[in-house]
């Protein structure tokens, strides 16, 4: 089923005012997105007519019951899957016009993925796993190594660099996955239940890393079941039966993430106040 002929919405729908008044392109602009899975006889409407705009620098948690369409949404946002209907601009680019190769390029340059199941390449060291996105992006060996080491240091795993995934705990593997997601310096991090397999303290480690990344200006979109995890985000979107039923903003896009870390928050508050 091909999407309806694009009749581009008015330009202003793609631009929102930032605090300083300058018009800036949202990183994600979705209009009337639907995804229908045709399984045998029955059709499953996983996402129904969703319109969503996400600003650059936002930290968004998507919540909802199992089967409510969160992963389907995320896969569309991450250009891993194609919507059945609707328009989607990623950083101003109309994704429907891109072919396979171009989509791979977009994924490589703009998006970092973190999955619930870690999804590290087996039998490949942490460092090599983190280097991989750079290799696919065509970065030269020397620079690749340097940047991968920096990314691993950023998630606090310097001493596990040459370990294989099978030699690491779930929390450590997930931190490697985060390092791999940020190594290409993407504008946006997408995480589908990144803490789903982790215990509370490992989950908090990962969430603190996300908060720091967001504080550095990266857009973070994550899926979670847990309110504790959603509390790290600036904005919480709730899905039910493929539709947005709640869109709650906890803090402004331009603010620091709500739970960046107590000391740091105090210091920041002190310095701004």
């Amino acid at each position: 089923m091909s999407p309806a002929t694009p009749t581009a919405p008015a330009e202003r729908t793609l631009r929102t005012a930032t605090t300083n008044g300058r018009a800036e392109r949202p990183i994600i602009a979705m209009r009337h997105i639907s995804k229908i899975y045709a399984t045998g006889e029955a059709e499953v409407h996983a996402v129904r007519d969703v319109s969503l705009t996400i600003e650059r620098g936002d930290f968004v948690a998507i919540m909802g019951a199992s089967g409510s369409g969160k992963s389907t949404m995320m896969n569309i946002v991450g250009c891993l899957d194609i919507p059945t209907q609707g328009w989607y601009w990623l950083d101003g680019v109309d994704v429907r016009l891109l072919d396979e190769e171009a989509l791979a390029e977009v994924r490589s340059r703009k998006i970092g993925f973190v999955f619930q199941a870690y999804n590290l390449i087996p039998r490949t060291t942490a460092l090599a796993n983190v280097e991989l996105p750079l290799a696919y992006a065509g970065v030269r060996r020397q620079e690749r190594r340097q940047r991968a080491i920096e990314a691993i240091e950023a998630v606090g795993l310097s001493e596990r660099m040459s370990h294989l995934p099978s030699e690491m705990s779930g929390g450590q593997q997930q931190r490697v996955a985060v390092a791999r997601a940020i190594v290409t310096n993407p504008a946006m991090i997408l995480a589908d239940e990144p803490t789903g397999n982790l215990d509370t303290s490992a989950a908090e480690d990962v969430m603190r890393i996300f908060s720091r990344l967001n504080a550095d200006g990266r857009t973070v979109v994550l899926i979670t079941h847990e309110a504790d995890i959603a509390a790290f985000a600036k904005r919480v979107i709730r899905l039910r039966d493929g539709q947005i039923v709640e869109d709650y903003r906890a803090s402004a896009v331009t603010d620091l993430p709500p739970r960046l870390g107590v000391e740091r928050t105090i210091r920041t508050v002190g310095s701004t106040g």
Partner: protein
Amino acid sequence: MTWRDNLRIAIAGATSNKLRSMLTILGVLIGVGAVIILVAVGTGSSAQVQANIDRLGTNTLTVFSTGRFGGRSTTGTQSSFATMTVGDVQQIERQPYVQSVSPVSSTSVTAAYNGASDSSATVTGSTPSYLSASSYSLEAGSSFTSSQVTNRERVAVIGQTVVSDLFGTSNPIGRTIQLGSASFEVVGVLATKGSTGIQDQDNVVIAPYTAVQDELTGESSSFSELLIQGKSSSTLNTVESEVETILAAANNTTVANLPFSVLNEASLLSTAESTSSTFTVLLAAVAGISLLVGGIGVMNIMLVTVTERTREIGIRKAIGARKSVILAQFLYEAVFLSLIGGLAGVAIGVVGSQFRIDGVQPVIAPYSIVLALGVSIAVGVFFGFYPANRAASLRPIDALRYE
């Protein structure tokens, strides 16, 4: 992504299941090794045939008498056999494709010199052209000349066996040897030629036919055998039919009833040669099939690998791998397996070809190594392409969902 990155990933992939990769490599190894060894055996047996051809001398016809003939009477002891005359020889010599005609009168005698003797030397009486027609070459001295034939001079050229039997290490040139009761002066020594298997071609004495007929056989200007050298092997069949026509006319008979037999060495040998090249082709085909089977093994394993690593492919695509990169990764892996198999196969093939196989010393054909290696790479590309393309065409979302 450079070729080195691809190679590293391919090697990591191939070594992740060592036993399986080894078995796949073994399939290619056996195929390539078989191609090299069997082609070497084929080439070796061709080389043996070729060596025989070279030794016997090509483009010659041997005409010999096969039976009694009542039409034309001849004198001497062999009157009951059909023979050829000097006139026949001259007529055959005038044919356009004929290089030379050498009449042959031969017998076996005891050769002796100074007390030493060689009891079974073959004495061949002929003309000087006999030497080149039979591929003899001189090692020392010279051949007898045409005028010596005309003058019925008793001179001789002797083979290496005769030299060693009669003279040991001393120089035989200018010495006089006894052939039966006659004395012949040695004017030349032949280079060694080896054995045909039944006959020692070095145990020979070659002398003017006139002298041999005078002293040993008693024939007079009639021959039971001719050695005809054609100008080229391609026209030898023409010469053969001309000779038959001439002899039939000279004897007032038909070609079908000719009391002479014409032995065409070229056709005999070319039959042997084509038999051995058919043999080589057959061996190569068998080996080629085993290489094909090895290639199917590569494809089979690559399909399993792609299925096993579906999820990994999804991850790679999610983190930015393009279709072409995934294609390259699996192609490299397939080619890596088949190339390792190919190189090991070349090693096994080269080692295996050092041994005599069923009486044949294999001769490694360089083309077979290049071919086998090339084919093994091609096999990797060809049989790796389908699985690799299958991997590359997976949609990332489907690959990621794969359990």
